[in-house]
């Protein structure tokens, strides 16, 4: 069974929607918010908890608002009327998930006159499946509803999970993606963990995943076909390079492609640091001379959404360079997750702009 990506919605520091992302990506310039230190790339039109690309989303957790808004943008751009509600699934994730709401409740309990005198509206957002379930509630998505988290690799994990749900017949269409928001606490924690990137970013990418047959029936263009998705783990920092090497070579083998078939790699390590160096070394070894693109230099480092931005960038690239070959997306996280996707380009019709 051929499972494909047939839809894309993005909110990024380039703007709310796939159009601004594609335009910003092609312009290849960094989206830096003015006057902030450390450097950040924020969503320009997302203020507070509001998100209004198509319909108003007001949620207590900023990351949830931007993710549910992106799901709404996808559904506005693609008519899923052919798919019954019970057959529409959701797979969403981020690296830090409900961190800020969790701490608002836990901290509120510590600081309040009584430990249970908390804002009970903050509790649901403090549970990590809040975003996925809110997407289901707002858009009547009654199929499997999965929340996943695997650090920087979360976007590829979500894509793999969606692909399997469709292949197993558990859903006909799955909205899969990853998100991360900028918050003061995230910046503090990244500094504390010695993981502060050169430019911190935020955003969300959601993909529509279905069978090729289903896409064709509905007249939805295939944007890309995941030929392979591999994942691995390394327990010690000095094993990161070997672990990434293994998932990249395994992905190529599983996809049945050679290094010569690969036109572009969208890389995912946070820079600067040893893992960015590892990624550079692995790509130079396995795919010498290949064109390497780095979303973090344009939308900033989006942490749990970084691999999803890798896929989104690959889709835009395939759209820009129709004759281009296979695209690789790689990811490596200091916590030990490594992952790789091999994407074959889709058919030649412009991506609907949502």
């Amino acid at each position, binding site marked *: 069974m051929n499972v494909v990506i047939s839809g894309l919605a993005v909110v990024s520091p380039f703007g709310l929607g796939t159009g601004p992302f594609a335009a910003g990506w092609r312009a290849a310039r960094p989206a830096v918010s003015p006057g902030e230190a450390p450097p950040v790339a924020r969503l320009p039109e997302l203020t507070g908890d509001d998100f209004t690309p198509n319909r108003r989303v007001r949620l207590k957790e900023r990351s949830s608002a931007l993710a549910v808004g992106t799901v709404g943008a996808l559904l506005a751009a693609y008519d899923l009327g052919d798919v019954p509600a019970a057959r529409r699934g959701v797979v969403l994730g981020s690296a830090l998930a409900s961190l800020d709401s969790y701490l608002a409740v836990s901290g509120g309990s510590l600081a309040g006159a009584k430990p249970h005198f908390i804002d009970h509206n903050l509790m649901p957002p403090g549970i990590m*499946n809040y975003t996925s379930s809110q997407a289901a509630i707002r858009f009547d*998505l009654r199929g499997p509803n999965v929340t996943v988290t695997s650090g920087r690799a979360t976007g590829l994990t979500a894509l793999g999970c969606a692909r399997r749900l469709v292949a197993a017949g558990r859903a006909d269409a799955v909205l899969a993606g990853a998100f991360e928001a900028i918050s003061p606490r995230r910046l503090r924690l990244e500094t504390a963990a010695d993981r502060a990137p050169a430019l911190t970013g935020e955003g969300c990418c959601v993909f529509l995943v279905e069978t090729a047959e289903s896409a064709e029936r509905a007249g939805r263009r295939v944007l890309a076909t995941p030929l392979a998705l591999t994942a691995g783990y390394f327990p010690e920092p000095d094993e990161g390079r070997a672990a990434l090497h293994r998932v990249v070579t395994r992905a190529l083998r599983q996809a049945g492609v050679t290094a010569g078939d690969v036109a572009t790699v969208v890389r995912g390590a946070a820079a600067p640091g040893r893992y960015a160096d590892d990624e550079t070394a692995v790509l130079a070894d396995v795919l010498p001379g290949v064109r390497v693109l780095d979303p973090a230099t344009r939308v900033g480092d989006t942490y749990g959404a970084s691999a999803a931005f890798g896929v989104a960038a690959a889709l835009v690239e395939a759209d820009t360079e129709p004759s281009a070959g296979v695209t690789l997306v790689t990811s490596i996280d200091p916590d030990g997750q490594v992952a790789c996707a091999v994407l074959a380009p889709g058919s030649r019709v412009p991506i609907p702009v949502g």
Partner: protein
Amino acid sequence: MGPVSPPIPEAALTSPRVLHTNGKNWSDDPTGRVVVTGFGVISSIGSGRAEFLAGLQEGRCGAKPISKWDATGFPHDHACEVTDFDPASVLERLDPKGSGQVAALAAAASRMAVREAGLDPAAVRDEAGLIAVGTTCGQSLDLDALAEVELREPDAVPPGDLARLLQPGRLATAAAAELDLRDVETLTIPTACAAGNYAISYGVDAIRAGDAEYAICGGADSVNRMAFAGFVRMGAMAHERCRPFDRERDGTMWGEGAAMLVLESLDHARRRGAPILAEVLGLHLNCDADHPTAPVRERVAECMAGALADAGVDAAELDVIFAHATGTRASDPMEVGAIRDVFGERPPPPVVGVKSMIGHTMGAVGAHTAIAALLAMQHRFLPPTVNFREPDPDCQVDCVPNVARPAAVRTALVNSLGFGGNNATLVLRGPGEAGPHPEARGAEA
């Protein structure tokens, strides 16, 4: 570590008709049939196979005042914490102090699971594997520690050792580190209180798809300030005991623990001569898409019916239903109603609520309950619903009140429902005789 169970005759695992929703008949394909070959369990009523089994058979209740953090000031303070188990006692590689407390539980349960399954991680290091850990609150105890740091110094940069522990993905990576695995996909599945069943489902599909040769799946959670304060605030927390189906039930009770299962294809299990505890015959995942906290009976019934269809099992074949049975006022009657919707005019089998014993272990509870089902199959008994005093006309089921009951258990259904309307149901089949339900059934209904 408990004794390794005897292998089950393969004939006992043969299902007469296993048709899945995607049309593939897995029963003819040993690589597509997924079996459980071991488990590790940490709970307030006992950790490890022998103690957890004894806890279920004796109907122990893990409720006691919270001791791991200061619950002073709450109107009531009971939960089912694990107070007699140290992860360090089973961990071989992972330093529990450096991993985060919930991650250490997940890793310890994973270690116990591979031991019981006779699965030497070194022997499968070159095979593609999967570790999926369900959770509701992730590294909750460390997040609570951060909340205390922030209370003292709101905008200060916290200690690096703490900042590096907080990612929920670490529940799965800690298990991979403990087992010294490399070619393994690791992910945490924070699908709230349905997460344990979601993690098992993820493993089943990964094995069937050929993406993993083996999968170590389940869940882990600790009783934490966020979830406790939130539920006390909502009036959904039991004061002293969790009493599913009881007329005077007053809420659920958080529990702590971890439960991890080793899943592999029947073919893989046979090749290495593994003990086969049960087969995951079918599953269903759906979402109410309605209300964050009020479950929808129709969707829950659809989830159970979907799992039965996926398993190719008629409802009449079920020997027991392990209900979600949180013990809250609204949820128990809703679930009983959904069960009746599935069974129609026919009487359902006994409906057990293990949360009365182990507490609501959140993202682990689906996996804890699946393990209870495996033990019920192997040791031929129905675990009880303890703390039961008086039937509720709105919850008329045989809940096996207070005392475990001898019974042949071959086919079991496990419900797991979560915040946000997430539902996940598993159908498990173990060894044993097919046929009529145990005679005792219905006596107390």
